[in-house]
């Protein structure tokens, strides 16, 4: 147990307290004020690790959980996990603060909200710190579950529920395939620790299962990080309260996939398949997200698509940077690895400016009751502070100075320009296409950033379309986004503080081998002359402005896209078909008839018992030890067969009951002949009483009807019965023929000495196995009570009925 483990466990522990706090203090004090302390402690606690980590130190702390299976809670702090954890706790702090004003303490179920939020925070921290793949997977799925709960927070809305379901289905599907990928990796390397897997990267790369493991893990990462074509869940997840959208669905949870890809870069990086999959999917997502964002009219949906596109951007950079591990790369590795640095840098920047944007949009939604662009406009004079935040966030996202987005956008272009020079992976031909795709996506990014600013805050005010009067939010609500806006500017002016303390160590954590041989020396500066990257940015601004001004003229292009071909339709179709299919299958075999279920049970008995006997060569037939058969026995045997068949064919109840009785008495004879006097006596008594009981009940039960069973059913019944008979015969024969070990009965033959009894069977029942007999008597008593009450109860009912009629 260490401080770090406590930090990870803290949100979970505090989640237990939430209901009590809520009960005690709501509605006097907003529950959020108590929760606010948790991320603050975590943030400060983690900050203390910054100096050591930036000096290159790595912490590796183990807490045994299931040591027998080599599954331990191993926390692993390096630059990458620390950067993520600081984002999680830092943004978490601001989001909780913001939520205090966003969620009314009088109307909302705050205790649920904060429990889910803490659950998420804890599992996200656990995810980034875990070294053991199974622990990591558990935390991974916990984030999916808490995301599900938070999206469905307003569960009375149909859209919230369907959005939550969609996100859960997609991310859990990815999580499961990631687990399969991890298991493949552990089969290759014989370890559950990611760190040890990384040290065996060469073995993994040469293994046959390399590509399947890679694809499975990427499925997990792509579904979580909303990459194309799994991105459809993210816009629907916007049904969650805005603090959640800002926190889970832009700053942290959707970055989990980025984290996994970055973590696994050392394992898979350098392979062309990894390079093309990550870069390609990332770029497609970047384009898809930015082009779709432009057409949105709901501000939150627009931000959702922009998040998808930005995640694609980060993903594509991670893919480009993985080329640094290609075996022929030589000394140019660090040159390409700038892309990884750009990815981490942009990830931090995105968390900051997108958090700010989401909170600002949340303020608009909260104060005006709508976030539809068509109803908004001219808000600048009424909400100046919000305008400022939107302006800072959007311009940063568009990649303009003096905001942090500009710096990472420049690095983004630099990385693509560097990639042009790759002499492998066919980049001579493809490099320029990638660059063009990245540039086009940036143009669309610029366009939608302008839409956010100009369509909401400038232009004519549309009062008649608003439910509430426009006014600024309370001060407390403005502070968290303002802090983020200030950070956006601060990072632009002193990026190297961040780079030195967090980004550089994070880069080294992604590429440890490269960091040891050829460390990255990078100094981010806003101005580095008129280079190609800057020219590209200027081009983006020019083209973007033109496109924005002429937007009304070309927006109709979107209408040409056939509605039936969307991914959402595919998802709906699959969901519908799966539901219908499983219902058909279930209805087909769950008939509700006892007879059918019995047939299944008996069928499986035949298969399992018979199959096992055949498969493991348990069948045997050896009649050499058989006792002789004499005439009475033969007669009795034939009599039993006749009695049994009579029961089967009897048309009247009396005949069948008497036949069963006869059968029982023949068994008594058998017991006599087979040297079992006690059994014979007992059976005689029991059989007599049973027959009497049957005859008593006959008086009350209806006559046997001819059962109208379809021939098909009869045939199945017959086949199953005969098969059961055959299996039992085979079992009986084999049991006799396979004398695997000698009987244990020899011990009981000393009954006289051990228990002072002459009758061995009685001694076994009352002495050696006395407890069994006692419980048997208990069963008999219970059955007796059952019989008694069943008869008595009826009398009571009848009496009451009689009184009623009188």
């Amino acid at each position, binding site marked *: 147990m260490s401080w770090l483990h406590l930090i990870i466990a803290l949100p979970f522990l505090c989640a237990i307290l939430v209901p009590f706090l809520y009960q005690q203090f709501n509605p006097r004090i907003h529950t959020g004020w108590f929760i606010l302390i948790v991320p603050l402690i975590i943030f400060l606690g983690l900050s203390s690790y910054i100096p050591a980590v930036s000096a290159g130190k790595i912490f590796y702390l183990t807490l045994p959980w299931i040591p027998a299976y080599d599954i331990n809670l191993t926390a692993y702090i390096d630059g990458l996990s620390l950067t993520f954890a600081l984002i999680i706790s830092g943004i978490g702090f601001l989001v909780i603060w913001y939520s205090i004003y966003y969620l009314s303490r009088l109307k909302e179920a705050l205790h649920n909200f904060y429990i889910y939020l803490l659950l998420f925070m804890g599992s996200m921290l656990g995810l980034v710190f875990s070294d053991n793949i199974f622990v990591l997977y558990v935390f991974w799925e916990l984030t999916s579950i808490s995301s599900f709960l938070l999206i469905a927070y307003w569960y009375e809305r149909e859209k919230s529920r369907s959005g939550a379901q969609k996100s859960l289905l997609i991310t859990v599907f990815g999580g499961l395939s990631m687990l399969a990928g991890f298991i493949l990796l552990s089969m290759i390397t014989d370890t559950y620790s990611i760190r040890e897997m990384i040290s065996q990267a060469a073995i993994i790369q040469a293994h046959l299962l390399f590509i399947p493991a890679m694809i499975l893990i990427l499925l997990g990462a792509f579904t979580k990080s909303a990459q194309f074509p799994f991105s459809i869940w993210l816009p629907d997840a916007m049904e969650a309260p805005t603090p959640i959208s800002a926190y889970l669905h832009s700053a942290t949870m959707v970055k989990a996939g980025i984290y996994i890809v970055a973590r696994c870069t050392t394992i898979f990086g350098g392979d062309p398949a990894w390079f093309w999959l990550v870069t390609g999917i990332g770029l497609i997502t970047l384009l898809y997200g930015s082009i779709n964002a432009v057409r949105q009219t709901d501000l939150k949906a627009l931000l959702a698509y922009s998040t998808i596109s930005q995640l694609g951007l980060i993903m594509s950079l991670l893919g480009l940077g993985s080329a640094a591990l290609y075996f022929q790369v030589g000394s140019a590795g660090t040159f390409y690895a700038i892309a990884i640095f750009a990815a981490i840098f942009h990830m931090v920047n995105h968390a900051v400016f997108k958090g700010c944007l989401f909170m600002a949009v949340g303020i608009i939604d909260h104060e005006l009751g709508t976030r539809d662009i068509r109803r908004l406009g001219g808000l600048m004079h009424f909400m100046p502070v919000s305008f400022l935040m939107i302006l800072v966030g959007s311009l940063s996202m568009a990649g303009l100075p003096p905001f942090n987005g500009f710096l990472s956008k420049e690095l983004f272009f630099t990385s693509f320009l560097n990639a042009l020079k790759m002499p492998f992976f066919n980049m001579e031909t493809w490099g320029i296409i990638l660059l063009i795709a990245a540039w086009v996506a940036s143009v669309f990014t610029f366009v939608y950033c302008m839409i956010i600013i100009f369509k909401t805050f400038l232009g004519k005010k549309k009062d008649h379309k608003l439910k509430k009067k426009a006014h600024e939010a309370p001060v407390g609500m403005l502070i968290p986004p303002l802090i983020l806006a200030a950070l956006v500017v601060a990072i632009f002016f002193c990026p190297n503080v961040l780079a030195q303390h967090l980004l550089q160590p994070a880069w080294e954590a992604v590429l440890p081998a490269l960091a040891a041989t050829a460390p990255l020396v990078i100094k981010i500066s806003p101005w580095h002359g008129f280079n190609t990257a800057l020219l590209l940015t200027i081009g983006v601004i020019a083209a973007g402005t033109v496109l924005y001004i002429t937007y009304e003229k070309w927006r109709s292009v979107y209408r040409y896209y056939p509605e039936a071909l969307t991914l959402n339709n595919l998802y709906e179709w699959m969901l519908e078909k799966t539901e219908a299919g499983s219902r058909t299958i279930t209805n087909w075999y769950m008939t509700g008839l006892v007879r059918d279920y019995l047939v299944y049970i008996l069928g499986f008995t035949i298969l399992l018992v018979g199959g096992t006997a055949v498969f493991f060569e348990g069948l045997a037939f050896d009649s050499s*030890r058989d006792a002789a058969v004499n005439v009475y026995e033969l007669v009795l045997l034939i009599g039993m067969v006749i009695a049994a068949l009579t029961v089967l064919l009897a048309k009247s109840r009396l005949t069948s009951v008497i036949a069963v009785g006869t059968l029982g008495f023949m068994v008594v004879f058998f017991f006599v002949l087979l040297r079992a006097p006690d059994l014979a006596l007992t059976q005689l008594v*029991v059989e007599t009483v049973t027959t009497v009981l049957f005859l008593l009940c006959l008086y009350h039960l209806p006559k046997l009807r001819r059962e109208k069973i379809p021939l098909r059913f009869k045939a199945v019944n017959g086949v199953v019965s005969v098969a059961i008979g055959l299996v039992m015969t085979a079992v*009986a024969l084999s049991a006799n023929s396979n004398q695997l070990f000698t009987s244990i009965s020899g011990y009981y033959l000393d009954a006289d000495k051990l228990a002072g009894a002459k009758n061995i069977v009685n001694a076994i029942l009352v002495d050696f196995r006395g407890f069994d007999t006692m419980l048997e008597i208990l069963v008999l008593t219970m059955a007796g009570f059952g019989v008694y009450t069943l008869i008595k109860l009826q009398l009571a009912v009848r009496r009451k009925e009689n009184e009623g009629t009188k």
Partner: protein
Amino acid sequence: METCMSIIIGILFAVGTYLILSKTLLRIILGTSIIGHGVNLLLLTMGGLKKGGPPLLGLNTLTFTDPLPQALILTAIVINFATTALFLVLSYRAYKVLGTDDVEQLRGYNDE
């Protein structure tokens, strides 16, 4: 003898199973009863038949039939009796209250 017994056991099981699969409660009860006999004989046969005298000390024999299956069967007979009795009364009650002894009509509620 063991071979003959094994065949009889198979027949008893087959008849019992066929009865259990039918619709009438009475037939089902009779089926369980017959399967009970089958099980008892199976246990007895597995221990070997007529390998010596009855398991009573003090008789003038040196070998005894295996006593352990007999002890097991004794328990089985009694339990079988208890369940048959309960089952019988239960079906009688069910018929009185619900007016049918057809298992297909005793399906209870449709919970969908």
